[in-house]
């Protein structure tokens, strides 16, 4: 026992002393591509082509943020490149390096996203890395219950509700599913899909009568929604187990279902409301913190991530779509083959109503999202009065926008000063 202890502590000491060695590879600290298989693909297929080597480390938001904050506070660090969603990066704006001098070769980056990535500072705080959005998926078994006259490509919230009602009544249990769990991406649905579809606004008409109608419709739909929805994070799982036949989620979070059983599922656009077919992109970006140990190498990695061939490899690995102009080869995975037409049908629809990601909120982004999540939890789960909840949450929302002094963004009309909540 004693000798073992000695041995262990001796070995530990040797390890501890040797551990200070320089970090030759670029550390890519990311909140994306977390599922183990995606991580594996990121390392083997996407990043292996980068000269100089990359150490790709995906993290939950908590440790990700804690580590970044710690390095910034300490004034030195090991992280070379940050990869995260727009919302996470926007709270770090002051500590990110200007990337406007990064040589992107010939890559043509989507201008709207590039503008978004300045975070209202005039500097290129991050570069868009990949994008995605939300679509609907259905098991083909559900199609026979579709109400007459419903075309999936032009589906509305009314039709979706009628369909779900049909399914619930004729199969004996609710078959619509929604990613309402703690790790589910629900806030973007309310901000970017439901509320704009009814009000043509995200912020200004938050407590309008139209918004009330939208929430009431969702509440109606909820009656035919699988109650396990409050546990779901990735809808691909309940779709595969057939707990759920029709679902709404992020394309990357449906991919596994499409890949495993491509013949069992159809993909189609998110529904439309009276004001249009609201939808919101999801944008992930790459950024460099001020404390990056090797600035040149980090910038080279950022440029590498935006090369067209890297972008296509990234699509294969993560199911996030490119942000630069590329022509997709034919041999894409089933998930891409199924979801790409649905995304195209949604964004190209006559009634398409794109909603932008929140701009200018800084580190209040999380609280902005929470306004929508709270509204949902109170109205739909808590059964509280819609009018009263909207009035109360509107006050919170107004407070946030005034604190951030953030002007309106699409689909709301531009404003002088903080975006008003009417």
């Amino acid at each position, binding site marked *: 026992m004693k000798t073992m202890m000695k041995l262990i502590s001796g070995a530990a000491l040797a390890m501890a002393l040797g551990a200070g060695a320089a970090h030759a590879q670029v550390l890519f600290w990311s909140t994306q591509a977390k599922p183990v298989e995606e991580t594996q693909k990121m390392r083997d297929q996407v990043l292996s082509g980068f000269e100089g080597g990359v150490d790709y480390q995906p993290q939950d938001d908590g440790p990700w943020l804690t580590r970044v904050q710690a390095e910034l506070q300490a004034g030195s660090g090991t992280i070379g490149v940050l990869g995260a969603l727009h919302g996470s990066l926007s709270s770090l704006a002051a500590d990110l390096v200007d990337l406007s001098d990064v040589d992107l070769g010939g890559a043509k980056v989507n201008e709207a996203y590039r503008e978004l990535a300045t975070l209202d500072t005039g500097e290129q705080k991050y570069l868009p890395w990949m994008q995605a959005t939300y679509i609907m998926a259905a098991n083909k078994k559900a199609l026979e219950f579709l109400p007459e006259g419903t075309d999936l490509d032009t589906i509305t919230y009314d039709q979706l509700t009628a369909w779900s009602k049909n399914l619930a009544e004729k199969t004996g249990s609710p078959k619509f599913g929604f990613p309402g769990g703690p790790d589910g991406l629900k806030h973007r649905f309310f901000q970017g899909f439901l509320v704009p579809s009814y009000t043509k606004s995200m912020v200004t008409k938050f407590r309008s009568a139209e918004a009330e109608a939208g929430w009431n419709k969702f509440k109606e739909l909820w009656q035919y929604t699988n*109650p396990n929805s*409050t*546990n779901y994070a990735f809808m691909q799982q309940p779709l595969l187990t057939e707990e759920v036949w029709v679902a709404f989620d992020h394309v990357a979070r449906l991919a596994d279902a499409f890949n495993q059983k491509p013949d069992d599922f159809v993909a189609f656009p998110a529904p439309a409301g009276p004001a249009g077919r609201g939808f919101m992109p999801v944008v992930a970006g790459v950024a460099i913190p001020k404390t990056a140990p090797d600035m040149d190498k980090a910038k080279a990695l950022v440029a590498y991530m935006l090369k067209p061939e890297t972008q296509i490899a990234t699509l294969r690995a993560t199911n996030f779509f490119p942000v630069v102009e590329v022509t997709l080869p034919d041999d894409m995975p089933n998930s891409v083959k199924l979801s790409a037409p649905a995304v195209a049908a949604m964004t190209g629809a006559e009634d398409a109503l794109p909603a932008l990601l929140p701009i200018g909120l800084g580190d209040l982004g*999380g609280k902005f999202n929470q306004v929508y999540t709270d509204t949902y*939890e109170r109205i739909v789960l808590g059964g509280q009065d819609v009018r009263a909840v909207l009035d109360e949450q509107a006050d919170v929302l107004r407070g946030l926008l005034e604190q951030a002094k953030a002007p309106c963004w699409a689909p709301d009309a531009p404003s002088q000063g903080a975006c008003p909540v009417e």
Partner: protein
Amino acid sequence: MTRSKALPYLLLAPATLFLCVFFLYPFVLVAHEAVTRDGAYTFANFRTMAEHWKFPATFWNTMLLAIVVVPLQLVLALTMASIVSRVESGRGAILYIFAIPLGISDLAAGLIWLAIFEQSGFLNTWLVGLGVADQPVMFLGYQSKLSIFVAVVLAEVWRATAIMMVILVAGMGLIPKEYGEAAEVFGASAWKRFTRVTLPLLRPSLQTAIILRVILAFEVFAVVAALGGTNLPVLMGETYHWQFALQDRNVAAAYAMLILAISIGFTLFFLYALRVPKEARP
């Protein structure tokens, strides 16, 4: 004799120094965040916490869980420990099996119990297989708060009883056998021997086991998140949420201070309730 006066402090010095540097120092920084906002001292963070619409549910869920889980665990741990100390053969194997959950993290435990309780899980397989239910029952849906609560209680009891059990086993081992034998000679029943001899002598271990377990019970999170999703908010979950999702370290720190205060309150209570009178010490 002067040496002996200094000795306890010398023995405590490493632990104290260690805790001061690696616990007390960061703790003071976080505590400072709880009572400041933008550099000024204020109670605003606590007010924000307490006035949030979810706070009452969060607070009471945490309390209720602790109040239900800990006594159940105590009874189970005492049963297990008594069995271990009384059984004649196979004691090693039994103790090993009882101690297994020690090695299982709360995240893994959440995973295991989710596989049991989810709609297409093992429990439903049995229920449908035995004909008790026609089709899978929804145990974890948002309308069935009670069954979520029961599932969390079961998972917590399964996961965290071992820690009490091991402490109690050690404590029972320290009780000289002669006491029990003497009581037996005087005709005391097994139950009487347990309540009149074992339990009182077990008090120091009981105190340790209960205090540690109660403190950990107020930090329950991973299992609740796995089984209850957003349906059963608990204090620790809200702390994480404010710290990382809402990025408001001040309010998160306020939550942490609340958890600490509750734990201290209960610790003081049990230190008092289960105190070992000085003259009764060995």
